[in-house]
C-alpha cells in the first residue's frame, strides 16, 4: 500500500476531530455542570468550564444519592442485580447455545424460531407475567426478583449471541478433539469455550449494561427503598426532583465513569470477540 501523504494524514485527522467533537460535546455539556456550584436548577447562561469549581456535588451524591441512601448502597444494589442477571443468563444459556450451535435434534428449527421470538419482545411485555411468577415465589420486591426480571430481558439475546459465537469456532478444531476421544463436554470446555470466550465476554457486557441502566421496569417491581438501583435513583432525580441539574450531572458522571473505564480497559480483549464470534449487539 502506498504511504500516506502529509495532506491526506491531516485530512484524516481533521475528520476524526469532527467525530471526536460529536462524541465529546454532549458529554461535556453535562459533565461541566457536575463541577459547578455557581448555579441552582437549570443553567441559565452558557459555560464551557464550571463557573465556580467545586467537588461538593460529588460529596452530596456520595452521601445521599436517592431515597436518602448513600451512593455506595445504590451501587451495591446495581452491581448485585446486574452482575447476577448477567451471570444467570450466561451460565444457564451457554450450554443451550452450544447445543443449538453444534448438535442435531428434532425440533431444532422450531426452537431457534422460539428463541428469536423471545428476543424480539419489548421489555414491557414482561411486567405482568413476571409479576405473577415472582409473587408466586415470594420474591417480587427483592433484589433477587429484579435480577430475574433483568435476566429475562437479557437471556434470549445472550443465548442467541452465544450460539453465533460457538458456531463460528471452526468445527475442525472440535473434530480433532473428537478423534482424540473427547466427548461433547470435553470438546466444549477445552476447545470451543476458550475460543469463544471474548465473544461471550462481549455478550455478557451487553447484558450487564442493559441491566445496569434499566429503571422503568425496576420501578414497577421494587417498592422498598433499600432495593433501589443507581439507574432507578437517577430516573427519580430527573423526573421527580426535576430541576437539580448539577446534582443530576454529578450523579450521572459517578454512575457511568466506572463502566466506561472498565470497558476501555477491556476493550482490546472484547473487540477480539467481535468478529471472531460475530457477536451482535
Amino acid at each position, binding site marked *: 500500500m502506498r504511504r500516506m501523504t502529509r495532506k491526506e494524514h491531516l485530512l484524516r485527522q481533521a475528520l476524526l476531530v469532527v467525530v471526536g467533537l460529536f462524541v465529546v460535546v454532549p458529554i461535556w455539556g453535562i459533565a461541566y455542570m457536575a463541577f459547578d456550584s455557581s448555579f441552582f436548577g437549570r443553567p441559565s447562561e452558557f459555560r464551557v468550564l464550571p463557573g465556580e469549581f467545586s467537588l461538593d456535588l460529588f460529596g452530596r451524591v456520595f452521601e445521599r444519592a436517592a431515597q436518602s441512601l448513600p451512593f455506595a448502597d445504590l451501587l451495591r444494589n446495581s452491581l448485585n442485580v446486574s452482575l447476577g442477571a448477567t451471570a444467570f443468563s450466561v451460565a444457564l444459556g451457554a450450554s443451550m447455545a452450544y*447445543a443449538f450451535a453444534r448438535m442435531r435434534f428434532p425440533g431444532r428449527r422450531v426452537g431457534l424460531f422460539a428463541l428469536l421470538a423471545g428476543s424480539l419482545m419489548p421489555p414491557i411485555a414482561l411486567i405482568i407475567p413476571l409479576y405473577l411468577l415472582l409473587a408466586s415465589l415470594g420474591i417480587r420486591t427483592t433484589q433477587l426478583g429484579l435480577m430475574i426480571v433483568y435476566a429475562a430481558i437479557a437471556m434470549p439475546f445472550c443465548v442467541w449471541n452465544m450460539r453465533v459465537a460457538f458456531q463460528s469456532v471452526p468445527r475442525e478444531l472440535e473434530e480433532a478433539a473428537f478423534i482424540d476421544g473427547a466427548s461433547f463436554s470435553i470438546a466444549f470446555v477445552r476447545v470451543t469455550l476458550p475460543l469463544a470466550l471474548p465473544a461471550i465476554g462481549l455478550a455478557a457486557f451487553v447484558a450487564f449494561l442493559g441491566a445496569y*441502566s434499566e429503571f422503568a421496569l425496576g420501578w414497577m417491581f421494587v417498592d422498598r427503598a433499600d432495593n433501589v438501583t443507581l439507574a432507578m435513583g437517577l430516573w427519580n432525580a430527573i423526573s421527580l426532583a426535576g430541576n437539580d441539574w448539577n446534582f443530576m450531572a454529578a450523579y450521572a458522571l459517578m454512575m457511568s465513569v466506572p463502566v466506561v473505564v472498565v470497558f476501555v480497559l477491556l476493550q482490546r480483549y472484547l473487540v477480539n470477540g467481535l468478529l471472531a464470534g460475530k457477536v451482535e449487539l
Partner: protein
Amino acid sequence: MRKRLLPAVIAGIIAIAAFGIRLYAIDRLPVDYDEDDYLRAAQLISDGLRAGDPGILLRSNYRPEHPPLQKIAFALAVLPLGPRPEIADAETSAPPSRSLPADMVSAARVSAAVFAAAQTAALALLNPLAAVAVAVNSYHVKYTSQVMLESLPSLTSVLCVLAYLAWARGGKRRWMWLVLSAVALGLTAASKYLYCIAGLAVVADAFLRAVGQARGLPWRAALRATGRGLAPLMGWGALALLVFFVADPYLWPNPAGRLADSIVYHSAYSSGAEVQSASFPPWQPFVWLSGSVAWERSAYLLSLDLAITLLALAGLGRLWRRQRVYAWWLLLGLGFLLVWNTKWPQYILLVSVPMAVAAGEGLRAVLLEPLAARWAERTAPRRAGEQPATRRDLWRATPWLLPGAIALTALAGFPLLYQGLMAMTDLNTLSLRDGITGGVFRAALNGLAGLEAPSGFSLYRLGEPGEWRTTVVHYTGLRQIGDVFAGVFSAQTWFSLMWAALSVTLSATLGTGVALVLNRRGLRFAGVWRALFVIPWAIPEFLGAVAWAQLMDPDGGWLSLALGAPLPALDGALGTLLAQTLAGVWMGFPIVMLTATAALKLIPIDVYDGAAMDGATGAGLLRHITLPLVFPLLVPALIVRAVFAFNQFYLFMPFRGGSTLASLAYQLVQPRPGPGFGRAGGLYAVSAAVDLFIVAALLIGVLALSRRTRAAEGVTYA
C-alpha cells in the same frame, strides 16, 4: 379467445367486489367535510343543465381551486333527481353539513364508486393482485364512496399509465394507446391537478428509456436518437394539454386568469391557518399509509392497509427493477406528499395504485415464491446422506438444553404466552386484582372454550365509559388483536419503522466511515481515537439521551445558550426527531465502527495489491472491493441494531415527543396513558396486543432480511 376470457372474468369479479365494498361504505359513512361543497357545485351545474342552459358550464365552478370535471360528473349523476333546495354556501373549513338531501348524496356517491370499480377493473386486467389491494384499501374506499374529487382522477391517472405501458410494449395499434394515454392525462388534469403526478412518472420513465436507447452511440447520434425517442412524448404532452382545456369549460372565458387563480390558491392554502392548525408532522402521509382509516370503523369491510403497506415496502426493490414507471409514480408521489404542507388523508390516494403494485410484488417475493420453492423442495427426492435427526440425537442433546430451556420457558415463553391470553381480555387498572389472581386465565380460556361471549370492549372507545370498566376481567375475543394488527396505532407504527431505518442507516454509515478513516497504516493516535469513540456505547443509553436532550433543548439547552437565543427550529416534530436521531447515532455508531474495523482486518492485503495493479484507485477500491467485502460481515450486527431501535423507548423518555410502539406499550400501562385514552388507565390488555404485534412484525422482518442475506453472511437465523 379463452386466453383473454379468464383475465376478463377475474377483473370483473374484482371490480364487482370493489363496488360492493364501496356500496357497503356508502350506506354507513356519515357526511364528511367538503362533501357539501362538491355537492353544491354539482347542484349548481345540474340546475343549469336542467333549465336548458349548457352555458352554466362556462360560468359555474363552485370551489374553483379544483377544476370542474368530477363536479360535472356528479352533476350528471344527480340530474335525473330533479330540483332540490339549494345547498348553502359555507366556508371550506365548515363542519360537515347535516342537512344535505339524502338522495343527492347517495346518487353522487354511487357515481364515484362506479369510477372506482372501473379503476380496479382496468388495473385488474394487467395486475390482479394490485387491483385487489386497491379494492380493499380503506382510504381508497372512503374517498371513492363520498362526494369527493378523488374517484375520477384516480381512474384516469391509472388509464394514463396503463395505456402508456401498452404503447411502450409496441405492436400494431400502439399509437392508439399513446393517444388514449394523453386523453386520460388531460381528463386527470381537468378533475384534480394532483393526480397528474402519474403523468410525470410517465415522462420520467419515457425520458430514461429514450436516453437508455441512445447509450453507447457517439454524442451527436445519441442526441438525435434521444430526440427521436422523445418526439412521441412531446405530441403526447401537447394532446394532453388540449384535452385538459377542452374538458375544463370553466377555463374557456378567461383561460390564463382562472388557471392562475386555481393554482395559486393551493400554495396559499397550504401555508394558511387551517393547515397550520392541524399541525401534522411532515411524515404524516406515511402515518396514514401505516394503518386503516381509524374513524367510522363500521363502514369498512376490511382493514388490510398496514399489511399492504408492509408488503409494498418488501416489494420496493422488485418494483424498481420490473415496473419502473410505477416506481417513479410512487417516488414522485411520496416525495410530493412529504414536502407539501397540506397533509389531508385523502391525498394518499395519489399513491394508492403504485403502492398496490409494489405490494403485489412484495407478496410474490415474500410469500408466493418462497412457498413455491418450499413446495418444490418438498416434492423433490431427499438428497443422499441427509438423515433426519432422531430421538437418540435428542436424548444426547437434552442435558445441554435443559437448564437453558427451563429458564427460557419461564422467562420468555411464559410471558409470550401470557401476552397472548391477556390481549384477548380487557385487563386494566380496575380489574388488575382479578386479573392477576387468575382472572386473565379464566376470561381467556372461557372465551376460547366458547363459555363466555366477547364483551363490548373496543380500542376505538377507550376514552368513553363502558361496560368493561369493572373490577372483573372479561373476554374480548380477537377483535383488539385484529385492530392493532390493522394499524390502529399507525403513528407509532410508522415512527418505529422510520426510527429503526433512520438510526441504523446513519449509524452504519458513520461507523463504517470512521473505521475506514482509522484503517490506515501509519495513522497517528488511531488507538486513542478508537478508545474515545467507543465511550458512548458504554454509557447507559438513557444517560446519553439526557445529555442530548439537554444539549438540543430549543430554549435553555446548551446549544441555544451558546447562540444566545431560543432555537425554534429544534421545536416541533422534525426538530425533536433531529435531536433524537443524533442521540441514536451517537450511541449506535461505535459498535458498527468496531465491527467494521474487525472486518477490515480480515481483508487480505493482496486483494488491494491485485486491484492496484489493475489500476484501481481510491474511490474505485472503496466501492468495488472494500465495501462489498465488509458489508456482509456487518449485516447481522445491523439487523440486531434494527431490532433494538424498533423496540427503543428509554431514549425517547427525556424528549418531548417521539413514540415507538414500545414506548406506546409502556405508556399504555401507566395510570394515565395520556391524550386519546380519557380516564382509562393501566390498559395492560391493549399493551399486550401491541407487544404481540411488535413480535410478529419483527419476526417477519428479521426472517425476510436474513433470507435475503443468508448466503453472504454465513450465519443462519432460523
